[in-house]
């Protein structure tokens, strides 16, 4: 009886910690549901080089062609998307 009572008290003490972890788990679940999937990030399936100069350098060294996207605009960062 005494042992059962002690075990019961230990279980009660454990409950608050489990509830806090559940809140963190819900937040992590929300992150995993919200984070873009590979289907949303399709343009990163390709071999990107952020600058033309570096792309030309690699192109020559690796003997590979370049696909250059030319944007007629004052500002634009196609790689990050803030353009």
């Amino acid at each position, binding site marked *: 009886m005494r042992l059962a009572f002690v075990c019961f008290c230990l279980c009660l003490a454990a409950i608050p910690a489990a509830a806090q*972890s559940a*809140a963190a788990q819900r937040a992590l679940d929300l992150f995993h549901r919200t984070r*873009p999937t590979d289907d949303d990030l*399709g343009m990163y399936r390709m071999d990107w080089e952020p600058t*033309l100069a570096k792309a*030309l350098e690699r192109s020559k060294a690796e003997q590979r*062609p370049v696909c250059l996207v030319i944007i007629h605009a004052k500002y634009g960062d196609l790689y990050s998307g803030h353009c």
Partner: protein
Amino acid sequence: MRGSALARPAVAGALAGFILTAWHGHRDDSDLPPQVREVWAEKFAPRRARGGGQSNVDVAILDASGKVVRWFDSLEHTAGRMELRGDRVEQYWMRMLSEARTALELPAATATGTTVRLPVLQQGAGVRVFAWLEDPGMPAYAAPTVEIVPTKDEDWRVFTAPENATKIDAAAAMPWLQHVYPAGVMERTDQRTKYPFTIARVEGELGLEPAGTKDGETFALLTGKVTLFDTGGDGFCFRGDLTAVLTWRNGGAVPASLRGVFEGTYPRTGPQGRRELPMRAAFESLAAVQAK
């Protein structure tokens, strides 16, 4: 383009073997690369008249010596209009890239793009921020921006593992929250410089509360409402809820990881009046690819 042609697996497959890059600027820039000069000399030639005009984005295919092999407008123009439908854009790009591969004497593309390789940090630690706007009238905004934010230990000074629930000024999250804004929203662009307004400041109060321990890791929940003001100087702002989990390992002062979400709305005013559109972001901490 990030959400249309470049997002299509077939296009990624057609670009297998290519190095992709981008350049932006104006015709009167003093440092035009020769490849851009060559394309624009033809694009803007007075005699060049194409039905439906032309877009402001072109694609140049260069061989391994940097020579322009061929180029095309990123959007097809037919019967006086630009073709914007996703499947038609893909067909057009596949046709153009097939011609480019032939010109380069490359075999026909057979694969579709495979692994996604996101921007990473080359050294140090930081946060990767995804942000996107859900505007039904502009599907392009739904393609997430991806920013890599290097951080220093001092950026996390305020974020210590709490013993009890505590409050933190949302401004402490500015290093990574400042990248939460949509791409290419024309009405939030400085009309003089043509640069988009960025995030000037973040306001709000965040709660940081203990959220248990597991396998030597200490968890805390970071939540609260934040308001983001841009650099437009007219008081424009948008709001949302931040929900994030921070962890610390072995009693470290600096968080070992961050995983979080911003769920808010972004106001836009147009012919339909003022609309509050869903604005979303996700945050994930990063360690360097290679330790230095």
